[in-house]
């Protein structure tokens, strides 16, 4: 008899525990948290993008029945500022507001209505100032007002390689293409708004139940602002309804804790949809100017790029976003001579920070558009010019880093090309304009476009990136059972399921429970940068291996033979060939085996401040899309007909979750291509609702063909490659290219709006 690998282990697609409750509406989100006697918090936000606060009168708010506390910056118990990288963001506005929607005061009341009325009753005397809203002027105009005392440049990261400025080098190019590109401000648009519950504790501390992406980073920022010792801020993950980077920065955490500590009562804060648009950072809008030079055969000779990213009022993660934009800014292509300058700016626009793709999305739209422009100049197929220049294992990146793992980009193009194109339009197909009945076929033209992207996986530039896992094995009722405990945030990506799969595979035990994520176990790092399968997966694997060694020792102590090469399967210790040796329950008896392990990926280094040289990334991941669109060229309406994708993931851990990630990332890229933009005018958000911030519906998202490659990365656990972000990069330029193919228009900006196609002259005048 041989024991088979455990069912529901890695590579399988076990049903996720949150799936059915979410579909049935029974899943408990952070906004559903409730305890008896809790108060409701609310936030007064600035109506101005830039103003001095002359005075705040909270008296009228306190006079409202049921109001328990009204707090301003004066009431912050500890440090007044917080931030993920730079601590420049005030907990509540301190004498000045820097963006539309900045928190100014907070209220706790017996019910939501009283809290909202109290917010409306607070009297703030503002001296309104002209906001800094022009990205280029903020960075380069010496007369521009400064958003912060230190100036408006958050980071400038040059990357220099070869001699891109040398006329002799430039002369080698047979074609040179210079274009400017813009990317609008995209929102994460997660469906569960910011919410959490703060419960004051008898020891003077606070217990926070919050929907977030990184419990420990939250606690590290919260404690100093509350004036509390770190161990007095205890965090538990509440039900998260999507994140996509939008929960990396704090939102209501410190506010709810301040109100709870002040009133001595539990306080829940739940943003509504409108407030959510002001309650988290967005994707950086970008203005990019690229010049590409290529030989007649398509070989890239040089690339220069200026990349401007609008970080808005506070730093958030702008510094790291700039690092990605700079280091990944030419895409998955070999370029000998290049000069890139990436800048992140302070302005009085809404703060921008982490969003799926993190600095690699904006440049992907630009460099892929450039590759298409070169292909058009040279009369080449878009995939041929890409394949000619594609990186492969052994290639050197713009920062001088050698890609030492598989990088099958050229094969991805071949696979993409081999996938069948959708049939021509047939009667009954949904047309551009959808149910609007705007065309019966008139003006509709089909286009095809391609895109490929390169994304770094895990944290870069020397960050000490680690995750912690505690794995416990015991026997109950004669059956072995495992508990996995980490602080890693399940944000909907399926991490809980993958942790359980790893434990089943490593320990051969069917009964695996994944404990609620909290701060009683060490940090897992952020559910960001496509890193959790790699990092927390790595930590769980390491902890399981340690448990397994302990079990083998225990077995030997108890006189059982455990041969070299033995493993755990089917609840038993089995030999290398799968012969059962002894039941785990028998070995364990009443003993509990528990091991905690920290897992670190291989170290990375900084980017040189002047040349941008350095091995700053852990792992590179790639996805490529082909988009087929129908465009009503007279009305400017787009219907994406088909999106096909090829992605290399190293190793498939859970196919169903993986396919969901690829579909979701692709849809988010579709949104950026043709729909999603926070419209900001003079620093003010014009569309803070799902009425006018349009995300793709089921009728906008087309069927997808998908090919998933598995070229293992020897440095990664199980050879896996982070998978959540790459599809978000490449679907946008593929769709934009397809719309260009259908219309013949240059279309240098996403999202592409109907007027960009239907009245391009007007648009050129306005944007030019």
């Amino acid at each position, binding site marked *: 008899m041989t024991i088979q690998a455990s069912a529901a282990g890695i590579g399988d697609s076990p049903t996720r525990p949150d799936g059915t409750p979410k579909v049935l509406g029974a899943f408990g989100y952070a906004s559903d948290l409730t305890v008896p006697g809790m108060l409701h918090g609310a936030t007064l936000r600035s109506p101005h993008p830039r103003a001095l606060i002359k005075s705040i009168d909270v008296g009228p708010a306190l006079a409202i029945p049921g109001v328990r506390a009204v707090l301003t910056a004066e009431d912050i118990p500890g440090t007044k500022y917080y931030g993920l990288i730079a601590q420049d963001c005030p907990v509540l506005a301190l004498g000045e507001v820097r963006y539309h929607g900045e928190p100014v005061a907070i209220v706790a009341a017996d019910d939501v209505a009283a809290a909202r009325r109290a917010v409306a009753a607070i009297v703030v005397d503002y001296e309104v100032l002209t906001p800094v809203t022009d990205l280029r002027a903020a960075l380069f105009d010496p007369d521009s007002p400064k958003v912060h005392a230190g100036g408006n440049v958050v980071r400038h990261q040059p990357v220099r390689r070869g001699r891109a400025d040398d006329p002799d080098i430039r002369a080698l190019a047979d074609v040179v293409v210079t274009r400017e590109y813009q990317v609008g401000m995209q929102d994460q648009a997660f469906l569960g708004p910011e919410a959490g519950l703060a419960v004051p504790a008898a020891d003077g501390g606070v217990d926070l139940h919050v929907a977030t992406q990184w419990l420990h980073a939250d606690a590290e920022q919260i404690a100093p602002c509350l004036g509390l010792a770190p161990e007095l801020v205890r965090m538990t993950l509440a039900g998260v309804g999507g994140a996509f980077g939008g929960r990396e920065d704090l939102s209501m955490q410190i506010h709810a804790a301040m109100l709870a500590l002040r009133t001595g009562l539990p306080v829940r804060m739940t943003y509504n949809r409108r407030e959510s648009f002001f309650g988290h950072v967005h994707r950086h809008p970008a203005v990019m100017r690229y010049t590409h030079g290529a030989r007649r055969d398509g070989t890239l000779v040089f690339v220069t790029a200026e990349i401007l990213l609008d970080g808005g009022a506070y730093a958030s993660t702008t510094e790291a976003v700039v690092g990605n934009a700079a280091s990944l800014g030419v895409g998955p292509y070999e370029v000998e001579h290049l000069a890139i300058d990436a800048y992140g700016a302070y302005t009085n626009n809404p703060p921008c920070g982490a969003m799926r793709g993190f600095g690699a999305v904006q440049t992907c739209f630009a460099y892929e558009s450039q590759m298409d422009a070169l292909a058009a100049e040279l009369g080449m197929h878009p995939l041929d010019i890409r394949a000619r220049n594609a990186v492969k294992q052994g290639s050197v990146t713009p920062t001088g880093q050698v890609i030492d793992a598989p990088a099958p980009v050229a094969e991805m193009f071949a696979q993409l090309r081999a996938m069948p194109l959708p049939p021509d339009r047939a009667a009954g197909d949904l047309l*551009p304009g959808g149910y609007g009945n705007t065309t*019966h*076929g008139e003006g509709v033209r089909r286009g095809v476009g391609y895109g490929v992207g390169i994304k770094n996986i895990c944290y870069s530039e020397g960050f000490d990136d680690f995750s912690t896992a505690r794995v416990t094995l015991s026997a109950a009722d004669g059956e072995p059972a495992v508990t996995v405990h980490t602080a890693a945030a399940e944000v909907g990506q399926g991490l809980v399921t993958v942790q359980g799969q790893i434990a089943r595979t490593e320990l051969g035990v069917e009964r695996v429970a994944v404990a609620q994520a909290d701060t009683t176990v060490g940090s897992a790092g952020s559910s960001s940068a496509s890193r959790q399968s790699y990092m927390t997966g790595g930590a769980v694997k390491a902890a399981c291996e340690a448990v397994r060694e302990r079990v083998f020792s225990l077995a030997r102590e108890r006189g059982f033979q455990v041969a070299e090469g033995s493993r755990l399967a089917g609840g038993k210790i089995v030999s290398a060939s799968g012969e059962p040796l002894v039941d785990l329950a028998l070995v364990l008896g009443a003993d509990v085996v528990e091991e905690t392990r920290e897992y670190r990926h291989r170290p990375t280094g900084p980017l040189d401040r002047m040349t941008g040289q350095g091995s700053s990334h852990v792992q590179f991941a790639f996805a490529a899309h082909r988009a087929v669109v129908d465009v009503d060229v*007279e009305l400017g309406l787009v219907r994406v007909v088909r999106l096909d994708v090829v992605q290399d993931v190293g190793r498939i851990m859970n196919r169903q979750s993986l396919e969901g990630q690829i579909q979701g990332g692709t849809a988010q890229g579709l949104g950026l291509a043709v729909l999603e933009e926070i419209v900001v005018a003079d620093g003010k958000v014009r569309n803070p609702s799902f*009425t006018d911030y*349009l995300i793709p519906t089921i009728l906008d998202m087309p069927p997808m063909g998908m090919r998933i490659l598995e070229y293992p990365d020897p440095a990664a656990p199980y050879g896996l490659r982070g998978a959540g972000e790459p599809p978000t990069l490449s679907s946008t330029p593929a769709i934009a290219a397809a719309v260009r193919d259908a219309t013949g228009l240059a279309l240098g900006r996403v999202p592409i709006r109907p*007027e960009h196609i*239907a*009245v391009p002259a007007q648009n050129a005048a306005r944007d030019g």
Partner: protein
Amino acid sequence: MEFLAPADWTEALEAKAAHPGAVPICGGTDVMVELNFELRRPPALLDLGRIRALKDWEVCDGHVRLGAAVTFARIISALADRLPALATAARTVGSPQIRNRATIGGNLGTASPAGDAHPVLLATGAVVEAESVRGVRTIPVGDFFTGVKRNALEPDELIRAVRIPETAGPQQFAKVGSRNAMVIAVCSFAVALDLERRTVGTGIGSAGPRPLTAPAAEDFLAGALDWDGLAVSEDAAERFGALVAAAASPIDDVRGTAAYRRRALAVMAVRTLRWMTEKEAVAV
């Protein structure tokens, strides 16, 4: 906020007379959004959901008379043959869940310039039945929209029904939204031909402070159309489109630019005219 829940129409009229500030609510797809966004806080809500009679429709004197609480889902399922353009417009309203709740009377009461039914009601010459304890009066829909989200109802009046002439010829509706479904109109257009009286009706949505008609375009087309052969020249069709665009008074906003709206209205006017005058729809 008071919540009034009359059991029948008479009680509803009495309640409205007693509480003229009460906001009528039926499906709640507009009113609840405004309340949740705290855009208004009326002293009372007047729930019309219990009044069975408002949910019926009937045919009388060449009109389809829709009770105010007839939903868009019902218009699609039951009236696509009698009111084809209105059914087309109904299909573009929100999502299935919204169409199950939202009513024709609510659409009129909100009187948004972007209301999806309005262009069709204008193009077909519909009449609003308003009633109060003082009696019933009829308001031609062209007089009903008085400004941005303002209508001609007196404070004590409720919408009881809307009467739409039964189809007297081909009619069409088209709506531009930047998403394929569940989207507020960037602009919309309806046109209806009355083959007996040889008149043209038009309606324009989301391209002015209130839903508009294009009288010059109507007159022009009534003269330019070959009514017997139901044909129109290319030039006349283009001219019709230009006149429709000229009748709009659009603005630049987050949903689109004024220039785009004019352009799109012209395109929709030409296309819908072709669909009405060509025997077969353009082959796809």
